[in-house]
């Protein structure tokens, strides 16, 4: 292994992280502090997720790494290579083949199974952080399940915009007890977390927090009875695979405002194309001025 311990981290560190993970699984949605280690990657590159992955990875595992839904971005490729080199594990881009999926910003479209683990990279684990800057106070709010302030935020959004204006990292209640930040996945992906058969693990490297959702746990997006949580997606079909229910990215195709909507989950899209689904392959010509919306669903991170 080129002088590294298996999966880079020493065994003692992995044991420490596994203890934190066990505690996190035992208290779904609760943030557990852990002694985050320096990794040979800068924060923001998923050091928290990498440490979690390193701690649960076995020699027989097959690893998939996605970034914004894609397997081929620099970030995804370097993390995959990192583990191929330091742990010698098989890697894949195929969601079905993977036993561990490390992700940033998306949950695969393909329904995950009981024998899979999904590891989320988390920049900010504290869902109350915009409302309350004191860590001691947010800990108290979680301990006492005092989440009125979060609903005030939703109330304000509905008052101002007619709807909740949170399109990424939309807060959820886990197991009816803990308010949790799902990491910057689109709100479109939130329902996938609910009763997911796969184990969901979350690692925040810079903030030194780990949390988890065990399989088949209730995960509810915060809402009001008369303004129920709704997912939104761009009202288009994927130009490549014709999917009408996947999360779409808007891709600019030329400098004259041409654009194309394609699946953000590249593996999902390719699998569908291999199965014979085909989109128009054509770019739409933008009527609105260039630069108004950059991502699928008209949402920005």
């Amino acid at each position, binding site marked *: 292994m080129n002088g590294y311990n298996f999966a880079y981290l020493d065994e003692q560190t992995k044991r420490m992280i596994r203890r934190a993970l066990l505690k996190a699984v035992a208290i779904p949605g609760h943030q557990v502090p852990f002694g985050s280690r320096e990794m040979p990657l800068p924060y923001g590159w998923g050091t928290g997720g990498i440490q979690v992955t390193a701690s649960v990875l076995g020699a027989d595992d097959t690893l998939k790494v996605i970034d914004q839904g894609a397997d081929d971005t620099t970030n995804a490729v370097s993390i995959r290579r990192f583990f191929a080199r330091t742990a010698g594990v098989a890697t894949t881009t195929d969601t079905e083949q993977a036993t561990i999926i490390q992700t940033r910003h998306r949950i695969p479209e393909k329904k995950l199974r009981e024998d899979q683990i999904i590891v989320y990279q988390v920049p900010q684990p504290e869902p109350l952080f915009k409302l309350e800057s004191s860590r001691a106070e947010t800990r108290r709010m979680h*301990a*006492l399940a*005092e*989440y*009125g*302030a979060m*609903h*005030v935020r939703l*109330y*304000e959004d*509905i*008052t*101002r915009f007619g709807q909740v204006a949170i399109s990424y990292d939309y807060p959820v209640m886990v197991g009816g007890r803990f308010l949790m930040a799902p990491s910057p996945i689109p709100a479109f992906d939130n329902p996938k977390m609910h009763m997911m058969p796969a184990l969901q693990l979350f690692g925040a490297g810079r903030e030194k927090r780990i949390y988890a959702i065990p399989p088949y746990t209730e995960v509810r997006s915060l*809402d*009001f*009875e*008369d*303004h129920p949580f709704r997912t939104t997606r761009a009202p288009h079909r994927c130009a490549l695979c014709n999917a009408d229910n996947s999360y779409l990215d808007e891709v600019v195709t030329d400098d004259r405002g041409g654009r194309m909507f394609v699946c953000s989950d590249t593996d999902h899209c390719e699998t569908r194309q291999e199965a014979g689904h085909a989109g128009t392959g054509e770019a739409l010509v933008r009527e609105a001025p260039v630069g108004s919306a950059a991502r699928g669903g008209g949402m920005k991170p």
Partner: protein
Amino acid sequence: MTDETLLSARDLSLHFGKIPALVGVDADLWPGEVLAVVGESGSGKTTLLNVLSGRMRADAGAVWYRDPARRLHDVHAMPAPALRALHRSDWGFVHQNPRDNLRMAVSAGGNVGERLMAAGNRHYGNIRAEAIDWLTQVEIDADRVDDMPRTFSGGMLQRLQIARTLVTHPRLVFMDEPTGGLDVSVQARLLDLIRSLVARLNIAVVLVTHDLAVARLLAHRIMVMQRGVVVETGLTDQVLDDPQHAYTQLLVSSVLQA
């Protein structure tokens, strides 16, 4: 008043170093009653309010609260979650400076609705309707419901704080100099409002004020404090018209001179 008390304190003592902030203080409050705590600055009024409401611990003594099911609770022995829940629902606290209580970056409606949401109300339309109703009750125009508190005058901010506090229909409200820092004309209007709300909703109030005129207008009973000691207590009119203790006589006469 033969009914059971809502709040009772016995033999409260608290020193800040050598300063006696509370010395052997007893207090009783009955449902629907307004009790004023008066005395000059530094006499221990705010400290008493904080100890009665469980926000601060005494060195000695006990505070008992009777819940709607008539169970007695030792306020200082209550688990923190239960005490915080009490402060969010059955109790309220009105601060002298409304900015200490309000969320200045949240609309008036959001401020009033917060306690409802904390109590589990999850219907936006109902919360908003309730907020508007309460704004009207504190004489703030319904069309200000979406405005930010920073656009409100001092008197409006204090009325907004009162609406935010009363929205859960608390049975007991602690008020610390609620009209302090306001212009005299604004004070008068606010006092009238507090008096009518408290009477109509049958809320018990512990009211801290250094202003005997405020106590006269709002309180059924009065406690006079001097250097942490309650020197005199009784019906407001009796105490103010016929003060027995020398310190009370001094207070009353200095008011008459003013």
